[in-house]
C-alpha cells in the first residue's frame, strides 16, 4: 500500500512539473498579449506595421516596427549566409569523409562554439571583426550589421552542422551503397544522393538556426548599434528588435508608460516570427519522418 501511494505521489510531482512549464508559457503569452493590447489602443496596428520610423523615445514619436524588423532580418540573413554553407560543408565532411575517430573528437569541439557566452561573441564582433573589416571597407561604421551578422553566423554554425550531420547519418546506408555501386565518387554520392535525401532535416536545421539568430540579443546589442533604420546596407548602425528591448529594459523608461509598452509590442512581433519558424520546422520534421518509415 505504501508503495502505491509513493508511486502516486511521484506521478503527481512529474505532472506538476509539466503543468508549471505550460503555465509559464501561457503566462508569458498572456503578459505579452495584454500589454501589447494596451499599446495598440494608443497606436494603430496600421501605423505599427507601415510607419517607416521607430522613435518612441524621441519627442516626435513614431511607432513603425519596420526598421527594427529590417535590422533583425538583415543581421539574421548575414548570419545564415555564413552558417549555412560552412555548417553544411562541415556536416558533409563529418558524415561522409572524416574517419570515425576524428569525428568523435571534432563534433563536441564544434558544439563548444554554441557554448561560448554570447557577450564574448559581441565583444569579439565589436573589438576584432569590425576593426578588421574596416581595414578592407574603409567607410564602414563602428557599429554595423555586417560584423554582428558574421559573428552570429559563427555562433549558429553548430546548429546547422550538428543537426544536418544527424540528418545525413539518418539516410539509409543502402542509398550510399547504391550510389557507390553505380560508380559515384564520394563527392557525387554526398551531393547528389545524401544531401537531397537528407534535405528536409537540413532545412529544419537551418530554420532552427534562423530562429536562434532572430532571437539573439547580446551580439547585436553590442556590435550592431542602436539606431533603428530601414535599410539593407550592412555597413551602417542599425537596431534589432532584441537590441531595442534591451535598450528600454535597461531602465531609463518609467514603467507603465506608452514608451515602456513598446517593448511588449516589439516582443510579440519577435514571438510571432520565432513561433512561425518553429512550427514550420516541426511540420517539416513530421513530414520527413513519414517519408522514411
Amino acid at each position, binding site marked *: 500500500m505504501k508503495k502505491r501511494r509513493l508511486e502516486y505521489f511521484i506521478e503527481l510531482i512529474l505532472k506538476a512539473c509539466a503543468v508549471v512549464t505550460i503555465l509559464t508559457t501561457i503566462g508569458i503569452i498572456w503578459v505579452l498579449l495584454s500589454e501589447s493590447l494596451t499599446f495598440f489602443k494608443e497606436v494603430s496596428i496600421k501605423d505599427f506595421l507601415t510607419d517607416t520610423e521607430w522613435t518612441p523615445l524621441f519627442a516626435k514619436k513614431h511607432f513603425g516596427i519596420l526598421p527594427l524588423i529590417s535590422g533583425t532580418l538583415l543581421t539574421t540573413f548575414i548570419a545564415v549566409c555564413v552558417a549555412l554553407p560552412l555548417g553544411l560543408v562541415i556536416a558533409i565532411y563529418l558524415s561522409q569523409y572524416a574517419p570515425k575517430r576524428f569525428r568523435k573528437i571534432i563534433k563536441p569541439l564544434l558544439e563548444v562554439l554554441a557554448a561560448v557566452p554570447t557577450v564574448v561573441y559581441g565583444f569579439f564582433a565589436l573589438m576584432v571583426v569590425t576593426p578588421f573589416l574596416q581595414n578592407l571597407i574603409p567607410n564602414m561604421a563602428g557599429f554595423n550589421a555586417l560584423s554582428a551578422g558574421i559573428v552570429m553566423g559563427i555562433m549558429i554554425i553548430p546548429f546547422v552542422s550538428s543537426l544536418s550531420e544527424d540528418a545525413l547519418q539518418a539516410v539509409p546506408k543502402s*542509398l550510399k551503397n*547504391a550510389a557507390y*555501386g*553505380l*560508380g559515384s*565518387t564520394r563527392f557525387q554520392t554526398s551531393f*547528389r*544522393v545524401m544531401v537531397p535525401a537528407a534535405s528536409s532535416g537540413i532545412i529544419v536545421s537551418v530554420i532552427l538556426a534562423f530562429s536562434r539568430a532572430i532571437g539573439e540579443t547580446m551580439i547585436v546589442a553590442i556590435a550592431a548599434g542602436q539606431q533603428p533604420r530601414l535599410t539593407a546596407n550592412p555597413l551602417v548602425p542599425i537596431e534589432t528588435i532584441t537590441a531595442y528591448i534591451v535598450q528600454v529594459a535597461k531602465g531609463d523608461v518609467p514603467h507603465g508608460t506608452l514608451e515602456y509598452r513598446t517593448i511588449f509590442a516589439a516582443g510579440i512581433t519577435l514571438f510571432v516570427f520565432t513561433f512561425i519558424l518553429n512550427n514550420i520546422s516541426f511540420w517539416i520534421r513530421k513530414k520527413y519522418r513519414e517519408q522514411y518509415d
Partner: protein
Amino acid sequence: MTNELNYILESKNVNVYYGELHALKDINLKIQKNSVTALIGPSGCGKSTFLRVFNRMNDYIDSFKIEGDVFMEGQNIYDKKVRVDELRKNIGMVFQKPNPFPKSIYENVAYGLKIQGIKDKEFLMDRVENSLKQAALWDEVKDDLKKSALALSGGQQQRICIARALAVEPNVLLMDEPTSALDPISTAKVEELINELKEKYTIVIVTHNMQQASRVSDNTAFFYMGDLIEHAKTEDIFRNPKKERTQNYITGRFG
C-alpha cells in the same frame, strides 16, 4: 590459352580478412563471360564478401584487408592505378534489399549516366527506356516516369534497381540475393530476367535458395567457412557433386 578469352573475371589466391577473422581462404576462381555464376553456401561462408571483392565494395569496411589478385579482363582491379568509380561503371551491382533513390523513376535510371556528365536529353531518355525494357518494367511504368520510385512495389523497386544498373551498360552484373526480399511472383520475374540478361552481361549471383541457383545459373560455386569447396557446371554440382560437403549442403543435411 585460347580458353582464357572466355573468362572475364578471375580471382587468384584471394585471401580476405576482417580484423582477426579470415573470411576468404585462398580463393581461385574464374568466371565465364556471358554466363550466370551462382555463389552458394551457408550464412557467413564468405559468398557475399567474395561477390563484393569484384566491385571493391568491401573497401568501406574499416577492418577489411585483401591479399591476392583479382583480374577483370586481364586488369588487376586492386592495382593502385585503378579508379574504383571507373571500375564500378563496368561492374554493376544489385543489392539484397531494393534501394532506389528517393527520386523519380526516370531520375533513378538516369542517375548513373548523369554522374558521368551526360546531359543529352534524348540520349538519356533512350537509355532509360531501353534499360527499363531490359528490366521488364517499361510497360508497367512508362506512363509515370516522374512518379517517385519509392511509390512502387518491392518487386518493381528491385527491377528499377536492375534497370539503374543496366543503364550504364556494365559488362558484369553482381547480384547479392536479389530476390530474398521479394514475393514469389516478383522472384519469378527477376529470375526470368536473369536468363535474358546473360545474352549481354556476365552475371554473378549470391543466393540462399538452392532451387534458384539450379534454375538460373550455368555454373555454381559452393563456399563453406571461407573456403571454395567446389566450382563446376551447375548440373554437375546438383546431380553429382564431387565433394561430400557439397552433397550434404545441397541435399539439405546442413546449412
